[in-house]
């Protein structure tokens, strides 16, 4: 027996980690071969016996007490450990996911070795085509780096003085934004739980996107309640529009409706608020939120570009989804009058006729900016000029 086949535990007990030395020594010999164990821990023989029993190794005792470092037992390596890794599966490359992630890879990280017989998990989004985007790892890193603390980032204490009707208009716009942000939180949170963890970057990105939206709900709520005791009006038409987003269960179609068209339009709205809001708190909130939204839109566009590239027929499905949503919302009011009027007032800053005219014009420009933005993104994904224009025109009047 060579030195490596002999384990000297000294006073180290099996109940203090001594079994690791034995495990290690057993791995150096073939199944069926033996190692010798010696040691002085008083419980050693009893512990060796039960440990070998549970690990499936045969053990022969030489003596119950170990005098002069004489071995006390011989352990014959059992086949359980090697048997365990028969048929284990590799989960591919650490840097790039596979096209299809099997259910029994489960929660294992990419490139881990998975024991055969591991349980199957039902992650419905399990192919690279339906979830991936070229940019996803970079977008996630960017999102992490750009997290901000509302307490520090927003000048909550800055003083400003608004006429009552202008403050009411701001509160109404915030009320509208809050419910839109709520939809924007629920949707990625739901999909994050459906994505096979093999595509971890997408799962992580959606998780942080949900966290972004949680922060948006927070800051809009806080702004609304800065000078008022309660929020404004929530309309049936606005909620009907958002409900169609929540009802969309297809990840790619949802990405089109929510991220590319909805959050894309919101980006214009936030820039509008950053420019024209009547108080510094709202302006700064809009600026910070728009940075997050730009990433959400970027992922939506990147994913759809990827998907269409892999599967060009996807464009038809996207077009049909936009048309279907338009038809479903055809009989609703769309953007509520209260929000529309509030935007004009907010941009006007007062009820002076000249100011109102200017506010009106700014809102007209906003609506046209939203349209241009949508057309640009639809073309980027692969739609023709004319198709992009007609599809953009079908987008909900609720903006989101």
């Amino acid at each position: 027996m060579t030195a490596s086949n002999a384990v000297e535990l000294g006073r180290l007990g099996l109940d203090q980690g001594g079994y690791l030395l034995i495990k290690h020594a057993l791995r150096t010999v073939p199944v069926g071969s033996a190692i010798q164990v010696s040691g002085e821990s008083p419980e050693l023989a009893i512990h060796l016996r039960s440990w070998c029993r549970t690990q499936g190794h045969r053990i022969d005792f030489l003596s119950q007490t170990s005098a002069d470092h004489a071995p006390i037992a011989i352990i014959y390596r059992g086949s359980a450990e090697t048997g365990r890794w028969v048929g284990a599966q590799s989960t591919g490359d650490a840097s790039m996911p596979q096209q299809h992630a099997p259910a029994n890879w489960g929660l294992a990280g990419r490139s881990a070795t998975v024991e055969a017989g591991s349980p199957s998990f039902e992650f419905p989004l399990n192919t690279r085509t339906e979830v991936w985007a070229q940019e996803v790892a970079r977008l996630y890193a960017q999102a992490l780096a750009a997290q901000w603390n509302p307490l520090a980032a927003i000048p909550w204490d800055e003083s400003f003085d608004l006429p009552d009707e202008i403050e009411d208009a701001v509160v109404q716009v915030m009320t509208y934004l809050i419910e839109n942000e709520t939809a924007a939180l629920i949707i990625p949170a739901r999909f994050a739980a459906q994505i096979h963890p093999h595509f971890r970057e997408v799962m992580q990105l959606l998780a942080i996107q949900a966290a972004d939206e949680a922060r948006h709900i927070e800051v809009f709520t806080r702004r609304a309640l800065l000078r008022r005791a309660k929020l404004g009006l929530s309309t049936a038409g606005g909620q009907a529009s958002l409900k169609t987003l929540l009802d969309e269960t297809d990840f790619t179609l949802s990405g089109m409706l929510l991220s590319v068209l909805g959050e894309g339009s919101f980006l214009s709205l936030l820039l509008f608020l950053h420019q024209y809001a009547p108080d510094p708190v709202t302006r700064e909130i809009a600026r910070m939120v728009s940075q997050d939204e730009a990433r959400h839109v970027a992922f939506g566009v990147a994913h759809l570009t990827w998907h269409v590239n892999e599967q060009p027929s996807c464009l038809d499905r996207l077009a049909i989804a936009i048309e279907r949503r338009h038809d479903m919302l055809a009989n609703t009011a769309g953007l509520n009058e209260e929000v529309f009027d509030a935007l004009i007032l907010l941009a006007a800053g007062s009820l002076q006729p000249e100011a109102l005219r200017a506010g009106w014009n700014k809102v007209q420009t906003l609506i046209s900016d939203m349209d241009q933005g949508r057309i640009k993104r639809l073309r980027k994904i692969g739609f023709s000029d004319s198709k992009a224009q007609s599809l953009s025109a079908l987008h909900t009047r609720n903006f989101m």
Partner: protein
Amino acid sequence: MTKPFLLGAVAYDAKVVTIWDGFQRWFAQHDFAFDYMLYSNYEQQVEGHFSGHFHVAWNSPLAWLQAERIAARTGRTVKAIAMRDTDCDLTSVIVVRQDSPIQTIRDLRNKTVAVGASDSPQATLIPLLHLAEAGLDPEKDVNVHRFDLLVGKHGDHIGGERHAANALIDGRVDAACMIDGNHLLFAREGTLPANSTRILAQTAEYDHCNFTVLDIAPIEAVARFRELLLSMSYDDPSVRPLLNLEGLKQWRPGRTEKYALLARAIDRFHTIDAFVDKVSNACRYP
């Protein structure tokens, strides 16, 4: 549909359903129609076995002795056909605190000894026999503190032994009894920190559970069931999770000589006499 081969098992834990459902699927893949029924305690199961409710019992060692004795009284024969590798050659230990003045079994006189459920072979009956054979009558010479969790499960549930170990560390008892493997397990869990305890005594070897059949069981089905059990390999991923849940690496042929120690214990403590009388009489005068 062929009538399935029926097993009786005791639901000592919810995982029992997962285990036998899994084995049922595995047997089905090997063209063997198998089903199982669960009892809440071994006494019901042994009675059910003699009433012909099922073909094979997954019996605790105490249930095996109950079945063996009822069979002897009623002119029947019983056989242990297979068992787990991890149920062979077990021992129990009596543990004291490291700093305890107790150095030998005799020092336990008038001390408090924690045991498990009253029907637990490993945590109660066999350790108490060890005390008795060393000259300490468990009823007079020591103060036995029972952690009577789930009586009827024959100690299959580890809870009683863990409570006994906790009581030892807390100083509520002077010694605690447990199966040898649990001393190491409780060390790993932190229930018995390393070096906090000392093993005062170790019992002789005994075996644990087995698959028991009575003479009326269908011979061919029993043979096929046993053959399939013994063929299960830890290398096979379709059965390995079940073997892990059931706590074995390999099924072995049954053997009965190592129930002698427990038999001595129940003779001494009359643990199952009343039950054996009751079922034997019912079998004889149905």
